[in-house]
């Protein structure tokens, strides 16, 4: 189970990679493993500003549907368009090519409230 050291995490199994005022968001290796084969990712919130812990989209495995939640508040700048044709990128590379959205942070202080890799590892028992 991979939990990269350079990321922040949520209890809902999203990760955040901060780059200045912007950040990439995806779901964790643990989450993709639990969901199984991802077959559809729907994000229709590009351009919207969404509060922390609110849903920004939906991810569907063969058997299940799950919401994806904002780790921090922000404006959705971009949806990873590769996921439209190849949602399985999330299974193959959840922390890299399988990123889901890019956001502009609207409250940088919230980043410090997120889980550290060590704290997240504890939650998933890794």
């Amino acid at each position, binding site marked *: 189970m991979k939990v990269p050291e350079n990321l922040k995490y949520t209890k809902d199994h999203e990760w955040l990679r901060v780059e200045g005022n912007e950040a990439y968001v995806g779901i964790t290796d643990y989450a993709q493993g639990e969901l*199984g*084969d991802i*077959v*559809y990712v*729907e994000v229709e919130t590009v351009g919207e500003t969404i509060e922390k812990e609110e849903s920004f989209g*939906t991810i*569907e*495995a*063969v*058997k299940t*549907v799950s919401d994806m939640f904002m780790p921090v508040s922000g404006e959705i700048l971009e949806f990873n368009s590769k996921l439209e044709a190849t949602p399985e990128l999330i299974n193959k590379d959840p922390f890299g090519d399988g990123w889901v959205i890019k956001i502009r942070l609207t409250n940088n202080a919230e980043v410090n409230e997120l889980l550290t890799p060590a704290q997240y590892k504890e939650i998933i028992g890794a």
Partner: protein
Amino acid sequence: MKNTAFYDFHVAFGAKIIPFAGYNMPVQYEGINIEHETVRNKLGVFDVSHMGEFWVKGPKALDFIQKVTSNDASVLVNGKVQYSCFPNDKGGIVDDLLVYKVDDQTYLLVVNASNIEKDWEWCNKQNTMGATLYNASDEISQLAVQGPLALKAMQKLTDTPILDMEYYTFKKLTFAGVKDVIFATTGYTGSGGCEIYIANADAAKIWNAVFEAGKEFGIKPIGLAARDTLRLEMGFCLYGNDINDTTSPIEAGLGWITKFVANKDFINKPALLKQKTEGTTKKLVGFEMLDKGIPRHEYMIEDASGNIIGEVTSGTMAPSLKIAIGMCYVKTEFAKAGTEIFIKIRDKALKAKVVKFPFYKA
């Protein structure tokens, strides 16, 4: 929660285990898509020991079966299997099942795991003619070996010829050195293969022999999740999703297993005959998504004007077809193949069209 006799094998093969119908069952091993494709292209093994088995014996065996099931069991010859259902007395279905005829006084009924207790109670209540009923569910283990290479691989384990067995037949044979194994060419995947009934004590021996025999063909264990996508691609009903205590066999498209013949009176026959003659207000049909989205159990269905016309009973992304498919009840006027319907997915009405079963054609 009970374990089947194969539980340790599931754990050893890395299965994700979930509680299902009172048992700890493997929902997935390697991944649903690869498991699904293994069955479509090669062969895979399902532990279906959770299924229920009732023996019906004695001179009144056929009378009993003719009363409680919808299909005509009088046409069965020894060694033949028949798909059927138990109609209830309120227009619904108690369960769907397989009926195996061993001989004139010996039949085996195979029922759904989730319904074993309900079915057992129902059968005993209806057994006014005094057939001998025996619930062997806890004593029998069952493996389904499914896929185009299944019979070829299993032939290695028995001297009795099985390659030429017709669909929905069975033989009692010696298999992997175990005597009196019931070997049936039945299944729930649409990819051919067999279902093997054995005593719990022989389970480990049979599992090992099956995997050894199938090794050269690429055999893998398959979980319940792929079992569901495989059956859904065929349009096979799943009790609890597509049929239940309130849906009639006629509405569910099971008219072909509901036989209104002269020498057979069965539970609720007059009401079901009326439905068959006069038609029903809703029907179970299949549909393919035209817009992007995946239908799921209990999503509502609308017509083009936004009126509610039905409800999804099963839905998935179909691994072999790479499209989203589903089964649903719709008002009969929308049941014709080609009709456009709209599935409500997260507040959007997404376009789909009614299609004929099966979705997947080998």
